[in-house]
């Protein structure tokens, strides 16, 4: 059991270019499940590999259980890793794959047998123990890879997109299994993913990265409700938030079309950016003078929810919608075909406001 701390940790692949991980500061508590999330190339895998010891730290420190591990070999760190490709040894059976690290550490034979049996029981691997990876399905290989990490009883688990090679259904069930397993074992876990749904459902806290920099570290709920900037707002949540640029500010109100939404704090700037989640809109009618008019492009019916993708057609008073597209949650029974008109207005408590220049949340 251990805490993991990044103290200004930096990794530069190319001295000319921007660092892959830029002076990262982050503290992961003992037993916490922390998810690192961000788009491709944001540095999430690199920062995970820095903890594992597979990637050097160019500046700053990384501490595991209080001790600086920079320069230490992976085997001296007591960290176990689950790889995206699983990286099982192809010539060994599941049992041998799991026992390998323990043999290297000269754990007594009886202990190895006991620990492999225990991991096998937890992960329901008993039928697979004498099979080689070539004769297993993707889900089975994934479980063996988990087993290989568990038997070591490490202080930290590092998981690098361990579910991305599974099919959608298995991914959802394995997601909950991993989260439950982590809670049961209580081992500090760093989990990398590019999938914001995985991030929201699995993590105690989620760290959003972009361009090698930490954007926000918070609980999934806080990230969704109080994103620090437009990047976090746009990245978290599915379908994504709609951002409206250059919304005029008039006497403490944001003017969205004919509607006036009160701003939560005093704003000096002439414009702000408004962010609305699909459920931040209220459907209205042509008679409502405060409603905005949209033309439906397509609808997505997901069973429990129903979304309309639409483009604005009314006067926005100089404001513009990013991507020229809004996403609105509509009633399950609603029938809207492409080309139909849609009238909606913002629910005032549901709008998030960002600075027009820095794009930071005005309330953060």
């Amino acid at each position, binding site marked *: 059991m251990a805490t993991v701390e990044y103290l200004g940790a930096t990794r530069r692949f190319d001295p000319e270019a921007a660092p892959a991980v830029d002076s990262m500061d982050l503290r992961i508590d003992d037993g916490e499940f922390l998810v690192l999330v961000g788009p491709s190339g944001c540095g999430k895998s690199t920062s995970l590999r820095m903890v594992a010891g597979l990637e050097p730290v160019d500046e700053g420190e990384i501490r595991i259980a209080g001790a600086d591990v920079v320069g230490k070999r992976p*085997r001296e760190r007591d960290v176990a890793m689950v790889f995206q490709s*699983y990286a099982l040894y*192809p010539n060994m059976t599941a049992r041998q794959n799991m026992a390998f*690290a323990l043999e*290297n550490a000269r754990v007594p034979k009886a202990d190895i047998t006991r620990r492999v049996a225990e991991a096998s029981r937890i992960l329901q691997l008993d039928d697979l123990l004498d099979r*080689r990876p070539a004769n297993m399905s*993707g889900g089975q290989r994934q479980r063996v890879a988990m087993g290989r990490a568990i038997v*070591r009883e490490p202080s930290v688990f590092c998981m690098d997109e361990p579910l991305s090679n599974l099919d959608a259904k298995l991914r959802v069930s394995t997601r909950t299994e991993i989260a439950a397993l982590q809670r049961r074992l209580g081992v500090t876990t760093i989990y990398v993913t590019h999938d914001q749904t995985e991030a929201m459902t699995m993590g105690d806290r989620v760290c959003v990265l972009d361009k090698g920099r930490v954007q926000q570290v918070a609980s999934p709920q806080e990230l969704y409700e109080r994103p620090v900037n437009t990047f976090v707002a746009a990245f978290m949540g599915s379908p994504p938030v709609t951002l409206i640029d250059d919304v005029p500010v008039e006497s403490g109100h944001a003017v969205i079309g004919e509607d006036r939404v009160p701003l939560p704090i005093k704003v000096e700037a002439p414009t702000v950016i408004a962010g609305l989640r699909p459920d931040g809109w209220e459907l209205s009618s042509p008679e409502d003078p405060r409603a905005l008019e949209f033309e439906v492009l397509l609808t997505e019916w997901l069973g429990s929810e129903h979304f309309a993708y639409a483009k604005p057609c009314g006067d926005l008073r100089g404001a513009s919608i990013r991507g020229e597209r809004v996403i609105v949650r509509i009633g399950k029974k609603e029938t809207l075909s492409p080309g139909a008109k849609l009238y909606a207005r913002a629910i005032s408590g549901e709008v998030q406001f960002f600075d027009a220049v820095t794009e930071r949340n005005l309330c953060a």
Partner: protein
Amino acid sequence: MNNDAGTHRHGGDRRRLRGAIAYLAMLVVVATVVIPLYFVLITSLKPRPDIYTQPVMWFPDEIIPDSYTTVFTAVPFWEYLRNSVFITAVLTVVQVVLGVLSAYALVFLRFPGRHAAFLFILASLMVPKEITVISNFALVAQLGWTNSFAGIIVPLAGVAFGAYLLRNHFMSLPGEVIEAARMDGTPPMKMLWRVVLPMSWPTVAAFTIITIVTEWNQYLWPFLIASNEKVAPLPVGLTLLQQAEGLTNWGPVMAGTVVTMLPILVAFLLLQKQMIKGLTAGAVKG
């Protein structure tokens, strides 16, 4: 509709033509390999007068093993065979072991001068053997190694090719498996034996067979160093058959060639399965 059928038939014709050309090319390649071999074999089995008849006899009237008897009696064949086996075995073991170890060091160990070492190996591959023959001979003579196994083996034991081939193969192994082994705290030699080599047998087998064939067929260098059956390998010994009776004695030479080829054929049969098998299956996804 008619048009469609027409193009279809036309396409079929072109495909057939392409197929015919491909088969013709294959036939030419096979013929260039098989005809000389066939000729070697029948010449070794012909009665002596038939070898020299004009026009050439492609199908001998009579098959006799006399040439083979000559091979085993006229020259110390068994000594040559023993020398060949010894030289090839030592060179193959040395080249495979050193090749694997140096490639492993080049790819998986971090040490200063790693890149320089690799460039040096690459550079030595680019020097033709013929150029080093004279200086090597002078050195071997100085050491008093002429007509000795050391004189034949040591200069041939360079591992540049093996190191290069195996390095490229090791670089192509799935990186995450190697990283997993690092995370599992695998010591370097165990990493080689339990992780790297099990994924590399096809390449190692291919390199082994290449080495066996090359060393078995070495001619120029052993010819320069060996002066009698104490150390001379088969290819050098066979030349003695040639001049046995003042005129080129093709029957026994061909019989000797056939006998020399046989061990290599056996080695091929034993190792070909290993070469074809893909062993990384199941390591990573897919």
